[in-house]
Each structure stands twice: as C-alpha cells, then as structure tokens.
C-alpha cells in the first residue's frame, strides 16, 4: 500500500496543530489549578475549563479544515488525550523525576488532583464543538490552495457548461426561425 506524499504532509501538519493545541491547553489547565507556582496567573479555573478548550480547538479546527468531519472528531479526541496526559505528567513530575517517592508528598492535594480529573471530563465535549465549528468556518474562510484550485476549476467548468448549454439552446431557435425550403 503506497501513501502519497501529500497525505503524509497533511497528516503531519494535522499532528503538529494537535500537539500545539494540546500543549497550550495543558499549560493553561495546569497553571489555573496551581497559580502559585506560575510566573503569572491565568485567572479563574473556569477560563481553562470553558473558554480555553473552545478557543484552542476552534483554531485547530480552522487549520485542519481540509479533513472530513470524522477525521476532525478524531483530531479533537487526540487533542484532549494529549493535553490531559501532559497536564497529569506535570502534576506527577516530582514523582516521575524521583524528587518525591509517595504521591502523598506531592505539592498538590488529593482534592486538587480529583478536581483536575473531573474538569478534564468537561474538556472533551467543548473541544469537539470547537474543532467542528473551526472546521466549518475554516472551510468557508480559509480553504486550502488545492481546494481553491479545485473550486476555480469547478467554476470554470460550470461556466463552460453553461456557455455550451446556452449555445445549444440558442441553436434550435435559429433553426426554427430559418425559413424552410
């Protein structure tokens, strides 16, 4: 089975946007839960749970608009999974790096970690909405070069068809008006 280079390029680009979106979402998610460790605050936790997933996934949707809807849904699921993994890796990083042995010695409390888990559940539907919305808007506002070429070709072809049809429609009228004999 051969995969053409264009498909690989598009898939790599989609992965790049997914990873970028996931990193941004995870960063703000982590910082909003632990603002005391951050060089600056990002406001309320609600900002990271409600507003940010929609915004980031909307941008991802804009950038992957050339994919069909099932692929966009898969991208949004991947976006959520990667961002949750990054956020939880950050939470458990002292344990992963061997600074602490027991999870109880982490700076975050059990309640904070549980509320992070529950908040992560809200992210998926919002991300789905954002990505699909972004895809829909992107398909209208930011079509790809290939799609533009295809659209121009279709417009040109349709115009030619119309001209050909118009020419054919005009022909019988002329023949009808021509006197016989």
């Amino acid at each position, binding site marked *: 089975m051969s995969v053409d280079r264009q498909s690989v390029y598009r898939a790599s*680009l989609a992965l790049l*946007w997914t990873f*970028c*979106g996931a*990193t*941004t979402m*995870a*960063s*703000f998610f*982590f*910082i909003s839960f*632990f603002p*005391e*460790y*951050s*060089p*600056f605050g990002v406001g309320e936790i609600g900002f990271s749970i409600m507003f940010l997933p929609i915004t980031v996934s909307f*941008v991802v949707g*804009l*950038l992957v608009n050339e994919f069909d809807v099932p692929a966009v849904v898969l991208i949004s699921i991947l976006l959520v999974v990667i961002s949750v993994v*990054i956020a939880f890796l*950050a939470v458990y*990083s*002292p344990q992963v*790096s061997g*600074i*602490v042995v027991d999870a109880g*010695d*982490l*700076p*975050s409390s059990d309640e904070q970690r549980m509320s992070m888990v529950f908040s992560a559940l809200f992210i998926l539907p919002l991300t789905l909405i954002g990505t699909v919305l972004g895809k829909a808007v*992107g398909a209208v*506002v*930011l*079509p*790809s*070069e290939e799609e*533009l070429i295809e659209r121009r070709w279709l417009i040109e072809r349709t115009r030619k068809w119309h001209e050909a049809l118009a020419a054919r429609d005009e022909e019988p009228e002329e023949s009808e008006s021509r006197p016989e004999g």
Partner: protein
Amino acid sequence: MNKYAAVIGIAFILVTVFSAATLALTVDMYGAFAETKNKITPWEGNVRIEEVRIPPISGTDEEVRVTIILNVSNPTRLDIWVYNIEFSIHMFNKSTMIDVGNSQAQDQFYVLSGGFFTYDNPDYLVPSGGNALLESSLTVTSSLKIAILNNTDGGKYRPLVLADMRYEVVDVDKRVVLRGISYFDPSGVDPYVG
C-alpha cells in the same frame, strides 16, 4: 494551506512556545516546592534541635525561661522563612518510666507548651543553600511546673522536647507545617548559665 492559514499557524506556534515555556517554569517551581517540602524535615536531618537551655533553678517562686535552638539547613533552591516555632517540654529523670501510651502518666512530667510567631523578623529567613540557628523560648511561671522542671538527675536536666515549625516558602508564598521535631539526650543537659 493558504497564506492566511499560514499566518494563523505561525501565531499558533508562537502561542504554543510561550505556553510551553510558562508550563516548564511552573513545573520547575512545582518540583522545587516538592523538594523543599520533602528535604526540610527532621528525618532528612535538616531540622533538628541543637540545644535546650534551662537555667539553674533555685526556687519555685521564680520565672524560668526555657529556650530551644533549632538548627535549620536549607539545601533546596528556594528560600524559606520560619514564622513559628512551637514546642512542648517534658522533664524526666533516670527513674522515670516513659509510658508513651498513657497520657495521664505523661502529664506528670509535662511542663509547658509555648513558642512564638514572627511576622517581621528577617533573622528567621533561611536562604537557599544556607543554614540558620533559630531561637524559641517559653517562660514557666507556675510553681508546680517549675517543680517538675527542676527534676534534675546528677545535676543535669533530662528534658524531652517536641517541636513544630511553620515556615513559608518565599518564592511561592505557600506555608508548610512541619511536625515531629524531637529532642532527648540520654546523658542529660547541663543547666544553662547565659
């Protein structure tokens, strides 16, 4: 990808780089706080009672000032500021049987609890990689308690001191309560003549 999408893509990458850098700094500080919380403990050997000062007692009608000197080492990357040292003191002699489970028996040897809070003393700041000797005192006025305190054994006091320390990690503005600092020297403590 058309040129507008490319512009959005580049802006998105810049936002990602910025958020990743912020996440890295935040995780670093989070790890540093975890390290501080786990290293500044008695069981790591970084917090210990260096000395217990009890002056010679001549009678039960005087005020006796008991002082403990806490040795705090800070091997971590963050400065800490100790704002409270609280301790309780029990007095034993060689004939005393320490019944840990019996609080009534312990009360016979219990002298007093006390300590201090400091909110503006820069002397109690232990810088990163530094060491400090911190002092906390309590004054015993009750004649009954002074009698318990004056329970010497061969001219030496045999105090059991249990202390708690509260400190703030300066860079993160988070406070930590450290319990379980204890002191007992089986050979006893000489009366302190300041």
